[in-house]
């Protein structure tokens, strides 16, 4: 079970990340060109947030089953001395939760905005902050903290 969840979490990361990157690029271009915020844009905004909520649920299930997390919290002194345990026991869940809250707030704020320019600006700002947090907290293969495969074989 744990292993399948891990694979799902790893693959789904790309889906959510892709959604966010596409949103940022598309909205960025449309914002500069002063285009209108179309229903498709709204769908993209909402889907991106939803993808992250699904990823959050998979992550939560993993958190409950992970031995790394358990190890970290059983003895936090040993935990903090180990970069990998600190990352998965504390940093990754915490930063990701904050990032998802930020993405959610950005999406909800944009929904309320009346003007199209304001919608684009709001989404770009909040999704942008979320993006930075994601870049830090995803265990990329090139991450300086913990390296995990970008694509897990299954």
């Amino acid at each position, binding site marked *: 079970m744990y292993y399948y969840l891990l694979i799902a979490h790893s693959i789904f990361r790309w889906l959510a990340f892709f959604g966010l990157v596409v949103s940022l690029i598309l909205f960025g271009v449309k914002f500069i060109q002063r285009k209108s915020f179309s229903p498709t844009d709204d769908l993209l905004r909402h889907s991106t*947030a939803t993808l992250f*909520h699904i990823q*959050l*649920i998979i992550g*939560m*299930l993993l*958190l*409950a*089953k992970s031995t790394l997390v358990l190890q970290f919290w059983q003895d936090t002194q040993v935990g903090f001395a180990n970069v990998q345990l600190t990352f998965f026991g504390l940093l990754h869940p915490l930063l990701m*939760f904050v990032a*998802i*809250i930020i993405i*959610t*707030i950005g*999406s*909800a*704020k944009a*929904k*309320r905005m009346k003007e199209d320019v304001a919608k684009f600006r709001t989404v770009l700002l909040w999704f942008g902050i979320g993006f930075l947090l994601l870049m830090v907290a995803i265990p990329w293969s090139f991450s300086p903290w913990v390296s995990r495969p970008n694509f897990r074989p299954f």
Partner: protein
Amino acid sequence: MSSLRVLRLIALLEGISLVLLVFVAVPLKRVADRPELVQIIGPIHGILFLLFVVKTLSFAVERNWKFKEITWKVLLACIIPFGPFYVDYQILRKIDQ
């Protein structure tokens, strides 16, 4: 289903899972040394809790709730047993009407 209805449904489920966890599963684990129920309800409650927090914040921002007036009560309620039922009855139900 409107986003408020979704929020109310999650509040209800979160409330039920919290009550089950605190009053049934955890006593079973601590007193009777049977951790099975905690292992099942624990993660379910965790998911519902996170979803509830995310949906509440999302809805609060969307509807321009004042944090000091409404949002903090709703967020606090989800960590108190029976809290979600109270908040649903006192706040969310009235907004829904």
